[in-house]
């Protein structure tokens, strides 16, 4: 079994209104040291797969097909073995 952590983030250059709002909220709570906040999705998947390469291939497919919208989002991931 594999554990895949997928991060979906807004493409660079797109206004991240949610990140901006969170940054303002942090600032008004006194966290003045915060310089930038960006918000994205964290998708945590447990899946079967014969080997790491196959898993990666499948995750790439999932990302492109469904998990991220390439017009506005990028995705990255990490793969770990799970016993």
């Amino acid at each position, binding site marked *: 079994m594999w554990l895949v952590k997928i991060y979906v983030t807004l493409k660079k250059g797109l206004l991240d209104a949610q990140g901006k709002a969170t940054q303002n909220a942090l600032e008004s709570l006194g966290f003045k040291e915060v310089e930038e906040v960006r918000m994205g999705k964290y998708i945590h998947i447990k899946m079967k797969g014969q080997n790491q390469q196959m898993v990666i291939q499948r995750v790439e497919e999932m990302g492109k097909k*469904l*998990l991220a*919208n390439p017009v506005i989002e990028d995705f990255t991931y990490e793969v770990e073995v799970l016993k």
Partner: protein
Amino acid sequence: MKFGVIQFPGSNCDYDCFYALNDVFKVEVEYIWHKQTDIKGYDGIFLPGGFTYGDYLRVGAIARFSPVMSVVIDYAAAGGLVLGICNGFQILTEAGLLPGALMRNNSLHFICKYTYLKVENNQIPHTYSCKSGQVLKVPIAHGDGNYYIDEHGLSLLIKNNQIVLRYCEENGEVTPKANPNGAVDNIAAICNKEGNVLGMMPHPERCVEDCLGSSDGKYIFNSILNFIKNSKVKL
């Protein structure tokens, strides 16, 4: 004349579209279940508003893979008339039938209110009976109506005359203040290059009777009906 209104799990304006067509405009209309894969015999297909699959993951992302969508894609390719309203618009962009994407409103809040729309293109079936530059009073109700497209994409939209409606002031002026959600270039509705597929965030089906505060939605419906009546081409 016969229309189809698709029912996805979580659609909630399906009923309102049906009502407008059936009760107000008195044309034949049927619901199309999202698992259906035969949509022949319709003069137009409506993708209604709502929260398909709860808007989970991303608006329109899951509904886009409903069985019915593969035939909607074929239907559109064959020149069939398609109108996606609100969530329907979001599904059409996810399905690649329309360019761009709909992002969270820049206020981060859902917004329900009347807006004014300027008709920028009256050369397509959906705005066929509108005057160019006409101002329509039509409500919006969405959390993700912030239309995004990159600069290159925008220039193509402009070049091909694909921007159909823009948010404007009551007097027709397109201003940043009239933009309710942050949409690029105040875009409220776009069509595909061929002009047979329209996606719009505002809800014309909610304003087809005077008692509801506006009946400007009639312009959209009448356009479609008149166009079909006059073109007599059956798909």
